[in-house]
Each structure stands twice: as C-alpha cells, then as structure tokens.
C-alpha cells in the first residue's frame, strides 16, 4: 500500500529548490575555454572531447545536504552554465541585466562577469558558432532570418541543438560508460587510417574514449566527495555507476542523472529527453521489489528526487530565445504509457508513480507526456485525468497510434516506431533518431502581411518577402490566397537555407562526441551525430506559427470583400494600416466572421488548405543528409514574439498582439465548446505533420471536481484522438483568469458557462454574473 504523501525529505528538497535563485556558474565556461587554449591545432572533435573531460575532471563537485541523487552542474542549487563556443556576444550584452530581466532572470556575480570579460569572450571572439553563422548566412536569407521574428532559428546557432533521447535500454544500461570506452578502444584498434573516412572515424573513436573518461571521472569525484560527507551508500553507487551497467533501481536512477549531467555540461541545450522512463526503469524496480531491496515508497521518493534534479538546472538563454521558449523550460521530455515494442499495453507500476511524482513535487521538469491508445486501461486514464485536474498543465496527452504511424511514415521499422517517445514539446521521436526537431519557427502571419502589403512588413518596411502588387489590385479571393501561399513558400525556402547553413556549420565546428555515445548508430558508423551518425536521420522540423490567424484572416477577406462585397481590399488594408483606429465597425464585422475553432467549415477548411500546403512545400526540400524536411505546428511561446512584429490582421486582431500557438483556436475566439474546437482542429491532417501538432484546450474547473466529470475529460481525449488528432494539453481556468475576464470581458467571450438547464447563447458577462461565477458556490458554473 503506497503512502499518499511526499516524504519529509522530498518536501525539504522541494522547498530548497523553490527558494533557490537561478544562478549562472561560469566554471564550465572557464574550464572548457582553458582546455581549448591548450588544444589548438587538434581535430575539432577531439578538442571538444578534451574540453568536456576537463570540465568533468576539474569542475565543481557539489553535494547538498542529505541528497538522494547527487550531481550539480555548478556550485549552486539552481545552476546554469554558459557555453561560449556557441555564442557569447548576447551574454556579454545581456549579463548585466540577467538578474533584472522580466523573462527568466538569472543571478550572476561580479567576479564571474569579470572573469568572462577577461578570459572567455576574448578567446571565443571570431570563433563562435554564432559569429560563423552570421558571417556565412547569405544576405537575402539573413535579412529575414536574424532576429526579425519572421523566420527564426537562433536556437540553432546561439545554442547547441539538444533534441536527443538517450538510449538507456540498449546502450547505457547495457554497457555503462566503461563498456562504451572499451568498445571505442576496440573499434579504434580495428581501423587503419587508409582512407579519409577512416581518419575521421579514428578521430571519432578517440573522442569517444576521452568523453567516457570524463563522465567516469565525474562520477568518481562525486564518490570521493560523498565519502568525505559520510554518505557511504551514495559513494558506492557513484563508484559503480555510470561506468558499469546499473544493478539496482537507485543505481539506475543515478545513472540517468549522471548521463543527463554529461549532456547538459557538453551542450546546455533544450530537449535532452529522458524518454520512456517507465519502460526502461521497470525491470530494475521489479527486481529490487522481488529481492526486498526497495519498497514502493522508497522508489517513489527516488523518482521525486530525480524530478527535482531535472528541474534544478537552468537553461541559460538570451532574452530573445526566452521569448520563444519561456519559463526556464528545458523541455526534458519524459514519456509514459503507450504500447510496447510488440504492440501490447505498456502501462506499469512506474507509469502511475511518475504521475504521482509530478502531482507531488509539481516541478516544471520533466515535461511529462503520456501516450494514450485505445486499450489504455481506464484506471490509468483516470489517473492521467486526476493529474490534469490539478491544473499544472501536465501531462501533455498524445495519440499513441498516430505517433507510431508518423515514424513508420518516416521509414522506421514497426517495432521501433511503436517504441516512440516525445522530443521536447510535441514531436514524435525515438532514441535512435538524429533530428533537428525545432529547426525554424515560420511566421505564417508574416506571409499574409507581405501578401497584403506589396511584399513588405507593415511595421518594419525594411523587411519583406516577394514583391507583390498592391492589395487593391487583387480581383478575387483566389488571387489573395495565391499571393499568401507564394509568400509562405518564400519563407519556407529561406527557412531551409537557414537550416542547411546551420547544419553545415554544426558539422564543421561543434561535433557532439558525448551525445553521440548516447544515440545508436554513431559508435557503429564511427560518425558523430552532427555528421549523420545516428541510426535514423530525420530532416529538420519547420514549425509554423499562426495557422488560426491566417485562416481566420483569409476567411474575413473571402466573406466581407469577395462574397458579401461589403468592403474593398483597399478599405481593409487602410484599416490594417491604421491598426483599426477609426474602423471600429469594420473590425466588429471582421470579428464576427466565424472563426476557426467553432466547427464551421468556412474557416476550418482554409486552415486545412494552408497546413496541407505548408507540408507539401516543406517536404519538397532535403537536408544535409538527404532527409526530407518535416512540418509541425507547435512551439510553446513562439506565438508571442511572432505576433509582436506583425501589424493588424484582417481577422480583427490588433497590431503586435500575440498570434496563436500550434493548431489551437486563437485565444478568445472559440466560443462554442471544447468539442467544437476539437472538431475544428481534427480537420487538419495531423498524420502528415511529423513534427507534431499542438492543441491547447481551456478546461472548466467544474470538470475537475468529481470523478464523474473527470471521466468526461477522459472521454473527450479519447474521442479527439479517434478523429486522428495527435496532441492535447489542458489549461485550467484559474481564479486569476476569471479576474482578468472581469476587467476585459471582450477578450474572454470564450469563457463558457455551463449550469444545468441554462442556455448560454446569450452570455454578456455582466459584472454581476462575473461576480457570481467567481463566487465559490457558482464556480460550478464553468
């Protein structure tokens, strides 16, 4: 019988974690740079391997009080590291404001900043990935790609790529890093340098040996420190793992965390996924239970300790990147549930324990994802709904079968396709895949704006796409649509160019010897991830932003201009130019044209057309390794910066306001019901967007209040997936939202009121009604 509550120890860890300030530790940067100073002239991959080893062997070793799992990437509880080899100029520009910036601040002391200025920046000046990218990207592409918000891929040149799932099942737990080192040594010995490829492979294996030494040293140093602190059990574990395959559950978890630490120290990137934790940890859990080595409560505590560890490190990013990936969110995805490799239901004890861990500690990491298939047990579905009901936004729920189908379509064999996990946000992924899962953010609303504004941005006339005739000269809706698609194709083309440019430079400058250990294929081929070493290589994902906004805008033009003849294109554009000032009536009419998300084919079918086109255009390109590019509509917060550079749009949206994330309806426009919003979203062809399709749904608090209603939530999810949709995540309407609705009722017309027997066709959110809703007794009204 499991204990319902967190242990005192976890409560303490959680408190410390909440109170700690995110702080930048510069030791990693210092040691990494020192090593590079001493390795000039050597092969790049070996220089990077040596630098990693240096960090492991000389970096801070910090164990906090009574920790169950040890390992910190810096001296602080919430440490972040700086990786100047990717970019440093934004650090120099922004670090004095790190502590005071509004989005995701970090502390950094004077001494650290001084050291960075004195020793780090000067060394990397001219040598960083960012500088190389900026000097190599061609002018035409660069003009719309670099910090414009039109197409954006700075996470691929100001940062490392990340986006891998470590292969615990077949690599780390089977071999340990000691075994991997031995394997690399054997492979090195077996190569003779008689071809250029062989030379590269030798360098690769040499690098692998070095990084293995690094991670093993790191663990040994933690063992020594644990010994000093009188933690013999921890010391013993750190001596065994991760050099050796783990035996116990606790060793396995410590291995997971050390592996993760290695990834963070080598790259400081997003989407270093934990993968199918409930699947690969279960054998250790069951064996420990049987041998009497562990109790369920002890295992639960260890899982929660890992959750906190995953949340403690901070992904240090520029203010610009923080707008796209807000919330200190490193997107370490952990996927539970789904089916096994041979197609049976995979739900096990740990699946439930993971849900419970998130419920207990409520940390923002890991990014908990669930795979749901038709045979997912009702009890697990209810446990998922119970967690959703807690209002943290977790877990993200995914259509298990569709995920496998997407990977099958990408060429994976069926067993591997069934074994998928999420990468970062919504992307269906697998631990043997190398892929840039969020390569470029593409602003669809920019394409529309260019089409309507003679090929130029409304807010920044220096930016533009393809030259276009004045909007007044469009004679039909089809002409407008074609103009939009033409601009969109242009944006996609340059997104491809930006990706290819970045891919080439990554291969040249920032090979990933440590991460290449973790992905199947690299060791066998003797090839780094950045050179296509992974067993399966999938093309980069271009993420579209603003489907709803574009579809809604085209619908308005189609209806008001070309069907009803109420306004001319000239008048519409004049209104947009003035951000609707003086055109309030027109705006009201635009707002009342049926919007995507209300199950009206009128706007919905336009969304399908746009997204189908986006896909066709995207997959017509291939990347550095000959893989097709992939399409997606997702991305956590990219719709906010994307909206900030776009003027007013025909759907009634005001200039600079946010666009829409994924395939969700634009905020405040889904006035009908979650079922209608889902029906709209399900019309989109999810199966072709192999980078994922994100859908956020507002959840009524009344759904959460008892089991009967939570069951309806489960039904809602299953029904949505049966329509072929891929993902859904629920945002609970909080009291804070209700207060905002009081202040700005127009922006919250989509807040549904559901009381028995009450018709809400006419809800005007009068002050009294709002008060009534906020009042406890009628909170049920939502």
């Amino acid at each position, binding site marked *: 019988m499991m204990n319902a509550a967190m242990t005192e120890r976890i409560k303490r860890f959680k408190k410390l974690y909440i109170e700690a300030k995110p702080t930048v530790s510069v030791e990693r940067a210092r040691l990494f740079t020192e090593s590079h100073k001493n390795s000039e002239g050597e092969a790049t991959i070996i220089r990077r391997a040596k630098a990693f080893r240096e960090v492991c062997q000389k970096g801070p070793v910090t164990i906090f009080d009574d920790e169950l799992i040890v390992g910190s990437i810096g001296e602080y509880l919430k440490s972040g590291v700086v990786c100047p080899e990717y970019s440093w100029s934004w650090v120099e520009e922004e670090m004095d404001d790190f502590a005071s910036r509004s989005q995701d601040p970090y502390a950094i002391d004077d001494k650290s900043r001084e050291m960075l200025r004195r020793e780090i920046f000067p060394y990397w000046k001219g040598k960083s990935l960012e500088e190389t990218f900026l000097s190599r990207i061609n002018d035409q592409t660069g003009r719309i790609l670099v910090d414009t918000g039109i197409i954006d891929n700075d996470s691929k040149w100001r940062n490392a790529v990340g986006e891998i799932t470590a292969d615990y099942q077949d690599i780390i737990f089977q071999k340990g890093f000691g075994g991997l080192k031995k394997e690399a040594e054997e492979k090195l010995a077996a190569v003779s340098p008689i071809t250029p490829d062989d030379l590269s492979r030798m360098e690769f294996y040499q690098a692998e040996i070095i990084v293995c030494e690094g991670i093993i040293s790191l663990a040994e140093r933690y063992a020594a420190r644990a010994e000093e602190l009188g933690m013999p059990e921890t010391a013993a574990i750190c001596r065994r793992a991760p050099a050796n395959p783990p035996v116990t559950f606790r060793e396995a978890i410590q291995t997971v965390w050390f592996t993760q630490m290695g990834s963070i120290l080598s790259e400081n990137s997003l989407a270093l996924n934990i993968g199918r934790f409930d699947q690969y940890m279960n054998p250790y859990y069951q064996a420990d239970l049987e041998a009497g080595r562990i109790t369920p409560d002890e295992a639960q505590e260890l899982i929660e300790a890992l959750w906190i560890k995953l949340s403690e490190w901070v992904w240090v990013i520029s203010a610009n990147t923080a707008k796209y990936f807000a919330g200190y969110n490193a997107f370490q995805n952990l996927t539970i549930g789904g089916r096994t490799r041979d197609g049976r239901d995979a739900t096990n004890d740990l699946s439930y324990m993971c849900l419970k861990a998130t419920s207990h500690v409520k940390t923002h990491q890991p990014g908990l994802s669930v795979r749901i298939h038709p045979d997912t047990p009702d009890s697990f579905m209810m446990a998922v709904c119970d967690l959703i009901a807690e209002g943290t936004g977790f877990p993200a729920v995914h259509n298990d079968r569709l995920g496998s189908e997407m990977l099958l379509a990408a060429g994976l064999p069926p067993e591997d396709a069934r074994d998928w996990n999420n990468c970062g946000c919504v992307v269906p992924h697998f631990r043997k895949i190398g892929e840039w899962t969020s390569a470029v953010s593409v602003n669809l609303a920019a394409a529309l704006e260019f089409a309507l504004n003679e090929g130029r941005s409304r807010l920044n006339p220096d930016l533009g796409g393809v030259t276009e005739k004045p909007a007044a000269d469009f004679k039909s809706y089809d002409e407008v649509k074609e103009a939009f698609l033409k601009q969109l194709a242009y944006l996609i083309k340059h997104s491809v160019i930006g990706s290819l440019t970045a891919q080439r430079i990554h291969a040249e400058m920032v090979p990933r010897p440590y991460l290449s250990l973790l992905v199947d294929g690299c060791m066998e081929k003797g090839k780094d991830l950045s050179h296509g070493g992974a067993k399966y290589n999938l093309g980069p994902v271009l993420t579209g932003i603003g489907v709803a906004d574009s579809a809604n805008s085209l619908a308005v033009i189609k209806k008001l201009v070309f069907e009803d003849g109420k306004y001319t294109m000239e008048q519409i554009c004049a209104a947009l130019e003035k951000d609707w000032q003086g055109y309030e009536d027109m705006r009201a009419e635009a707002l009342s044209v049926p919007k995507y998300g209300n*199950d009206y084919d009128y706007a919905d079918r336009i969304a399908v057309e746009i997204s189908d086109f986006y896909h066709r255009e995207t997959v017509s390109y291939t990347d550095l390794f000959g893989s097709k590019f992939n399409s997606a509509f997702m991305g956590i917060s990219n719709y906010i910066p994307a909206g900030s550079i776009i003027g007013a749009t025909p759907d009634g949206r005001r200039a600079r306001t946010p666009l829409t994330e994924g395939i969700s309806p634009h905020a405040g426009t889904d006035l*009908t*019901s*979650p*079922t*209608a919003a889902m*029906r709209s979203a399900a019309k989109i062809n999810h199966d072709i967007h192999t980078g994922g399709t994100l859908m956020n749904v507002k959840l*009524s608090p*009344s*759904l959460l209040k008892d089991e009967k*209603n939570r*069951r*309806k939530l489960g*039904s*809602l999810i*299953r*029904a949505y997936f*049966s*329509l072929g949709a891929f993902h859904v995540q629920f945002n609970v309407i909080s009291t804070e939202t209700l207060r905002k609705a009081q202040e700005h009722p127009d922006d919250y017309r989509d807040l*549904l*009121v*559901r*009381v*028995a*027997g*009450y*018709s*809400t*066709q*006419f*809800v*005007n959110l*009068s002050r*009294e*009604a709002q008060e*009534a*809703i906020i009042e*406890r*007794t*009628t909170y*049920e*009204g939502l």
Partner: protein
Amino acid sequence: MAAAEGVIFQVQRWSIHDGEGIRSTVFLKGCPLRCAWCANPESWSPKIEHGFGQLVTVEELMRRLRRDEVFYRESGGGVTFSGGEPLMQADFLLAAVQACAASGYHTAIETSLMADWEKAWPILGLIDEIFIDLKHMDHGLHCELTGVSNKKILENAQKLLAVHNNVTVRVPLVEGLNDDKADLEALAAFLENSPGFTAVEFMPYHNLGVAKYARLNLPEPPIHSSPSAEAIDGLKRFLRRRGLNVL
C-alpha cells in the same frame, strides 16, 4: 408548421450537467410557466422574436447534433431536450426523440411536466433519462412563484414515477421562497411513496440569466439569492434521513 418542424433557440454542445456523459442540449421555445427565478426568459414565448428562435426541421436538427456524435459515443453521452418546456411542441419533440433513438443516441429531457399526459407519455416513454422540476409542493405558493397550478404537474409526476425507472427530481432552491423545511417535508412525503425515482438534485438559484431580461424588453426580475452552502447541506441531510437519494 409541419409536424417535423419546431422552434428552438439554442443547440448547446458540451453540456456536462444535463445528463450522462458529454451531451448536446436542444432548447425548445415556449413555456407555460413564468418562474420568478427563470434563467432562460428567452424561452417563454413560442414565437421567433427579439433575435431568439429559429425554425428547424428534424433533419436539420439531427445534422447539427451529429457533429458531436463521436463525443457522445466515447462518453456514454447523447442529446438532452430542454427549454422552455419541450413538451409544448409535442409532435416535433416526438419526431426528434425518435430520430435520436434511431441514431443510437442516449436521450434525456428536462421538463416541468406541465402538459397533457396523453401527449407527454408517448414521448417520455422513449427517453432514457428524465429530469423533472418540482418547484413547490404547495398549490398556492406554486401559483405565486410560477404562474400556474401544480395539480397537473404532480399528477403527471406520480404517473411517471410509477412507470419510468430513471427520473431525477430537480428542485430549484431560492432562498426564502421554497427552501423551508416544511416545503421539503411535503416533497419527501410525495417521493417516499414513489419508488421509481432515481434521485433528488438541488439547483441553487443563480443570477446568470438576469441580463437577458432587458434585452427582451422584460421588466427586471426580482433579485433572489441561493441558500447558503450550509443550508443546502442541511436540506440534503434532511432528505437523506428520510431515505431519499440526494445528489
């Protein structure tokens, strides 16, 4: 008006408080009562006016209801008929209920039972889940509060409870009007002898419909209030002690 046509004022998707599972609620226009606390005054008149109401055929209605079919199926939900008083358009309602049954939808109805039994029972007999409103057991007070006598309503209720096995009795609770223990004593006595009912459900007053009155050029309704949560709990306990199932 042909038999297969009716006047409705709303098809509300995602109705989660009007029966089992995820449902759509069809609100029919026209009501013989004028309850002092009514939250759907746009339902009173059977006519299309003030921007409320549309004439639909059963086919058109089914077309709209089909949209959430996948959600009904997955959740054990279906279609609820409400209003107004749905039984006022008996021919249309019967055809609609038959069409829902033919499509395999679970059906429910919310009714005041203010109708002739001969016309009501052929419809009610087809419906899976029935919600009836009993606003007040006292004849005089019922007239005062709703504008009609409760004689026919109680007769129908008695007959219904004898022959249908899924009837929930909804009691709107308005502070000071019908929340007295004495009022509920009469209700308890009435229900005690009717084994056929499933449960009593209290519907605390809410003022969400107040704003609609002005739009309809109706005088502003009196402001009421709901009994407190504690009072409601007390009433629930009272009925449960009498052996009745209370939601």
